[in-house]
């Protein structure tokens, strides 16, 4: 699960970077925001349990 969580963080970083790179482009920023919505969900469904 740690590997999966790392990959989710990578997606998050990429989506945030996209928003910065394309801040004048509505379509790209909106789609990057939608990716971040799913990052929120992915984090929610892969909680660290400490076990």
């Amino acid at each position, binding site marked *: 699960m740690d590997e999966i969580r790392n990959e989710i963080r990578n997606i998050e970083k990429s989506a945030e970077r996209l928003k910065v790179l394309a801040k004048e482009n509505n379509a790209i920023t909106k789609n990057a925001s939608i990716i971040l*919505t799913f990052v*929120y969900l992915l984090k*929610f*469904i892969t*909680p660290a*349990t400490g*076990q």
Partner: protein
Amino acid sequence: MDYWNRFTETMPREALNKVELEYFRTMFSYAKSHAPLYADKLKGIEAADLKTFDDIKKIPFTYKEELRKWQEDVEPFPYGGLLGVPIEEVSTFRQTSGTTGRPVYVPESYESWQWRIESWCHILWMAGFRPRHRLFLPFGYNVYVAFWEAHYAAEKVGLEVIPGGALDTKGRVNKIIELKANAMAGTPTYVLNIAQEAQAMGIDPKSFGIERILGAGEPLPEATRKRIEATYNCKMFDHIGSTETCGFAGMCEAQNGLHVVEPFFLVELLDTETLSKEVAVGEQGVIVITALGRRSFPVVRFNTNDVAIKGPDTCECGRTSLKLMEIVGRVDDIRKIRGVLFSPKTVEQLIRSEFPDIVEYEIVVTREGIMDEILVRVEVSPKLKAEDASALAGRLKERHKIKTNLSCKVKIEPEGTLPRYDLKSKRFKDMRGDH
């Protein structure tokens, strides 16, 4: 065994508790700092104080009436003090049915809606709905949430969805046949109405080829579930949810109770007397819910007024989540009649299990002088002869007395007299005024 999310659905109880406690603290802080209702309600309590589930039990409940109050003349319109995100982030309006009073307006942001849909995917998947299914939804969804949830979640799971709004019941029967739908979701009442309409058209509902049906919007007593399974030759599954909380528990293939979708929700089952202690397995408790990741409409310790029986810790499906064995009913629906506690669900259970010739019914309670009277109005199958209908009325009176400890009158009504319902049925009418 097949899961939507094996990781969370089979997580050991201890780990789930740890995750949910952490999620609760996060949602508690979020609600307090973003929704005026909770900024006010949770004053003086800090997330850092919430170290155990016993600490959580000190937090006051949220009641539906409060939700209404915080939307009356409170900006921003129409969500008032319940809104947990900037209003520009709200992407969808929903509302409660208004069955018990003024409707509550519910804001969903894109994120919160997707969170809600993800929870619903668990409900569909555990009930065996798969991408091979063509799902017919026999409703115009309007502003009510349940079938929007079913629609979006079914798409996400990979089913093919047929929206069946803007048709009458006959039109829906024809559409099911025309498109060879093999799955359906609906209120149990309306699912039975569709079958009745098909039979009136000379069509056996078994010939539809519907494999699975998910019940929504109404309680589903076991007898009604079995009757629908026999009528359609299918498997019927239940789930429970509400507009305020989302769909939060569903039935797995074992068809023995409802699994709470954890860790999306913290569900407390509290003793009906003091509402302060978790009940034991087999006991009845009031359902109190916190949605642990929905930020546009935070709901912390929402007292649903629904009563359920706590199920065992294990299930043959391997899920480790809290199980609700039976939804006993709403606290609001349970009435005292002639000094005896009466639940309309008992009568539904009786009619659906023992009286297959009753096609529709309604219970009316009135007060004549100082005496409460129960009248059960029934419509029977048109195939039944008059003398058989009269015998049925007599038998229903007897069985009602045995099941409820209350006598009743039974009136056979002409076909088509009683209302039919698409969404929530209202078959129980208490006309006493002071109940």
